[in-house]
């Protein structure tokens, strides 16, 4: 009974482990409570007379059936929070890794674009007024900015295996949600803000990229693909894309 899709990310191993533990504990709590309700429904309908007086009985019941289980459940909740906080803190409460591969992810109704900063390692400037998808500039990259000359815009997110990645999230129209189930990743792309998302893919393969925040009539079509390949394949792909830019003949290829 493995409902989660295959995991391909470094942090996904611990996350899946924790998810399964949580689900198992909660599932059995659910089953136990439902059995209790059914037992109560079908037990003998007569009330037992107890020797203890009313007040003593109630106090005992309160301690045994209320306070003690409540303490146990509170301890369980605290265990859940603190174990998973380690995961959250490790990935989210830290600065981005300067060694990481940088890719800018931009959500547009209804398409994901992935921009690589190129050999200079710096993204060229973008201007909303320059956005023109039919003319091949869906992100509004400024051609007059020298840093943009080697920027690669792709409809596929290509990444080498076992290298840390830092995604920079943007949206130019409405809120989109970057969701890569196989990488256990989700983060909204909010217009006017730049988000960051760090992870390390560990298993080569193809992974669906979805939009998880309703963004318009094409919301369910807003899908792309993450391709995790070997470092050599990645370098070859990058070099080919850079060569395609070099003649300056065509604008950055963007459509799928």
């Amino acid at each position, binding site marked *: 009974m493995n409902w*989660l899709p295959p995991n391909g990310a470094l942090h996904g191993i611990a996350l899946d482990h924790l998810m399964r533990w949580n689900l198992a504990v909660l599932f059995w709590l659910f089953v136990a409570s439902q059995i209790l309700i059914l037992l109560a429904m079908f037990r003998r309908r007569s009330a037992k007379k107890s020797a203890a007086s009313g007040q003593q009985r109630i106090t005992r019941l309160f301690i045994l059936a209320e306070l003690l*289980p409540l303490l146990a*459940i509170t301890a369980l909740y605290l265990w859940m929070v603190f174990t998973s906080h380690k995961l959250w803190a490790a990935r989210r409460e830290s600065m981005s890794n300067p060694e990481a591969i940088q890719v800018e992810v931009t959500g547009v109704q209804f398409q994901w674009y992935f921009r690589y900063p190129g050999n200079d390692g710096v993204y060229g400037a973008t201007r909303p007024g320059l956005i023109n998808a039919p003319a091949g500039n869906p992100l509004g990259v400024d051609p007059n900015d020298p840093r943009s000359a080697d920027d690669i815009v792709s409809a596929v997110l290509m990444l080498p295996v076992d290298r840390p990645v830092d995604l920079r999230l943007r949206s130019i129209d409405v809120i989109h949600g970057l969701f890569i189930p196989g990488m256990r990743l989700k983060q909204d792309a*909010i217009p006017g803000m730049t988000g960051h998302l760090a992870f390390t893919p560990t298993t080569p393969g193809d992974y669906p990229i979805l939009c998880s925040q309703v963004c318009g*009539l094409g919301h369910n079509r807003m899908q792309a693909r993450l391709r995790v390949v070997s470092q050599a394949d990645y370098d070859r792909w990058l070099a080919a894309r850079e060569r395609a830019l070099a003649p300056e003949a065509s604008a950055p290829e963007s459509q799928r």
Partner: protein
Amino acid sequence: MTTVATQRAPGRTLLSRIATSDHRDLACLYFLLALAAVVIGTLLSLAIRIHRVWPTYAFPGYGIPKPEDYLALVTMHGTLMVFFVLTVVPQAAFPNLVLPAQIGAERMAFPRCNAAAFWITLASLLTLLAAFFVPQGAPISGWTSYPPFSALPAAGPGQGNGMDLWLLSILLFCLASLLASFNFLVTIFARRAPGMTFTRLPLTVWSWLASSGLTVIAFSALLAAAAMLLADRHLGTSFFLPAGEVVNGIRQRDGSGSPMLWLHLFWFFGHPEVYISILPGMGLASSILANFTRRPVLAYRFMVACTLFIGVFGLGVWGHHIFVSGMNPYAGTAFGLTTIAIAVPSSAEVLAWLAMLFRGPIRLKTPMLFTLGFISFFIAGGLTGPLLAQPALDAYLHNTFFVVAHFHLVMAMAGIFSIFAGLYYWFPLLTGRRMNETLGQLHFWISVVAAYGTFFPMHFAGLAGEPRHYAQLSGTVESFSSLIPVERGITFAALTLAGAQLLFLFNIFWSMRRGLPAGENPWAATTLEWSPIQPHFNIIRDPYLYGTDIATGTDFLPQWQSLPEAGTSAQPSASNSE
């Protein structure tokens, strides 16, 4: 409901029953309004389910839904159910029906305010439904309506006139809720009968105290947010609009705001809203459990403390809806902790209910069955709360069907089962008759099985990564094809669930005329709404005096009844329910 009013006051015209400020007449009007909303909301949800598994099915008189139609269905289904069913019934219809009686008051503190609240709610519902009939139809941005999607008409069909009507409807609903809740609060504080101290209030009244307090604060935030969004749309402000927006290739005006503000304001309302709709059900569950097990509520003061704790803390957990929105990750950690904290009193109430089940002689009449159903769903949906409260795990499950399963179980199913419990329980107050027990039992068993069949499998779809608001499972996600049989099963269960409600509707209209005469105090209850003489009381005892060691020879002692020895032994041994 007409027969009801006729019985109570023969010779009243239809007009006098409608243009009324009598709280029980208003309760009937609210019930009718919620009935209309729930019928439409359910039909929309069936259309959603059918379209998901048979995407090429052409609806008679309409045709095959377009992608934007699907999103409009989802948006309107959510809005109708959350506001006009799950808020209106527990937080407007039920308190109008019994709140004054339960505290020994003849009428509400502000009857006209109270009546105005109903008419504004009706205007709000009609405004919302009108969105179906304007050019481009109903809005498609979901019931949370995040900007800029909801701020810019260019962002999609339905985001023009439809969105304006949606916002107007929300504004009106906020206004009505504020009026109604101020009235309830003042009524509880100022109009209790002599002797009705706070520790003698039924737990339903404590719940309405907490939920009305939450309503005043939460709906004020939503009122402001909706007004600000309307201003962004029509007055050139930019509370929620950032600079550099390009929609559909067209440059929008540069704003200086942020959509994040809406996310915070909306969920500052949105999470308390969950408690507004469920707290009255929790109070009702305690009351019904006490009655149908013939024992006092376990730890009454402790339950009151839990209710108030939930009421206050409910205001501090909204951030768990936006863990992955780009909120500061430290804030995510903090909101995870507050959310776990609020799970503790909720769990405490559940434990008390479970303990109460094993005390007295349990009577499985329909109100009790639906209360057990409420507890079952409250647990089933509640248990995934602490899981979703963990930012690290929520970052995978957010906006998937796992969350859809969570809130449909804990808010929708628990909420609707508690509404059924209340309707079966209080039906004699309105009609002098009981609802048919056999039909009621059948209604319960089919509903409970079909509801689990509908919502439990959604957990698995969510774990597989299936997002919300997808009209169809197509595209790059091959693994989703394995979910199609699950989806089909969900649709069949949903159709069964909706079909079972016909039993309930039939039962209501049949029992109104043909039901067994209920007589006085048909459930042998202790709280004041069942008193044959209204009102004028001098309350001398706690609300839940059930048990075998009560001096009168019966197993209960109503709050309105005076003892033979003129109040000398007014507090029998079981009275101290702690």
